[in-house]
């Protein structure tokens, strides 16, 4: 059964169908079959985090999953963060305001990992933010701006409580 399998899942709110050989990585399927190239591939072995997406609401490395494993799942990628009219979501806006990206290669992974981090812990300390963001490597920023951006969103939530 190395032949392609039919798969169908929801991604960024839309149902998409396709065919995937079992060996096809979910990251490749998202990028090459669905054309959603916002999700980046850095290392292909689970180390860099650039390929992080939300799988049924929780962050995963999409280079460490097979496309066939997404059958029936609900996925979200960086393309699903901004609203349909292009309005950035709060986290994206904070990244922009705090210069949390330079080349932008790590950014999709950072955003999705930070999104999950803030979901399980809406008001993290700086230490918790740094621990959480250690899931994704950035070769440009030195992390400071990224930490500031996540802190800013967490701060809004502190204030809102």
């Amino acid at each position: 059964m190395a032949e392609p399998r039919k798969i169908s899942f929801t991604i960024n709110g839309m149902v998409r169908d396709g065919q995937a050989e079992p060996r096809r990585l979910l990251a490749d399927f998202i990028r090459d079959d669905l054309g959603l190239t916002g999700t980046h591939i850095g290392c292909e072995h689970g180390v860099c985090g650039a390929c992080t997406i939300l799988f049924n609401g929780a962050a995963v490395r999409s280079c460490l999953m097979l496309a066939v494993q997404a059958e029936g799942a609900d996925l979200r990628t960086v393309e699903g963060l901004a609203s349909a009219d292009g309005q950035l979501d709060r986290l994206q806006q904070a990244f922009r305001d705090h210069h949390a990206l330079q080349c932008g290669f790590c950014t999709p992974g950072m955003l999705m990992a930070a999104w999950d981090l803030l979901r399980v812990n809406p008001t993290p300390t700086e230490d918790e933010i740094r621990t959480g963001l250690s899931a994704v490597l950035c070769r440009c920023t030195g992390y400071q701006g990224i930490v500031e951006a996540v802190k800013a969103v967490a701060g809004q939530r502190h204030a809102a409580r």
Partner: protein
Amino acid sequence: MKPPAFDYHDPRTIDDAIALLVRHGGEAQLLAGGQSLVPMLNFRLAAPAVLIDLNRIPDLAYIKEDRGQLCFGAMTRQRQVEFSPLVAHRLPLMIEATRLAGHLPTRTRGTVGGSIAHADPAAEYPAIVTALEGEMVVQGAAGKRVIKAADFFRGAFTTAIDPGEILVEIRMPVTPDHSGWAFEEFSRRHGDFAIVETAVMLTFDANRRCRAARVAVSGAGAIPLRMPAVERMIEDSDLSEKIIVEASAQAAELIDPATDLHASAGYRRHLTRVLVRRALTRAAAQARGRN
């Protein structure tokens, strides 16, 4: 790189998975959370002809308490453990170790059983089941058998699971009253496998003396090392600073570490002494506080 081609099965029941395993024999590889196996497939260090994916077997994912033990279905996600009120209440040492295992996104997929069956010498869960004398339940065509932690890890990446068997459950005793615990590790980056790590559980009596001690060290050899000689030095003592210093020096003597890319043997010995001392100190303070 990309994985080589393989036949893929995603059975819905344990019995179906075992039947597939029996049918395909040595050709087949089980896929749990995939946080170690998929990188190996991508590197083509693993090239199984058949992949049996356990991710769609709901009966393998649960956490429950049963007769003084906490039982984890082998496919229970590490993330599930991390946020489980039951584990926080009954086996908090497991939560401490879980937070050190990879990162939140890898714990979303990574499983308890996957980590234990993979038996990486530097992984967290093998150290805990060894320290706590946990049990592994494996199931094959002939039924289930229970393997004690001391008999389970046979070498680096090698366990007592027979071909044709699947690890289905991991059991560990719940934390006794008047206990303190600690998991200490040193790694180069957060979320990396540890260079050395230690799991400690101390149980005190009403007179604030240590009634039972469990100490295991990992990363300093091919398999997690339980340390009865160290435990005997601690048991029936008040865990004074002097005893802690002596016991951690003893732990460093007992290991037989290798020199590799990540650390020299001497450095591993040093880390063992420091980490065991820290873990004993923290666990003892906690046990006293809960007395």
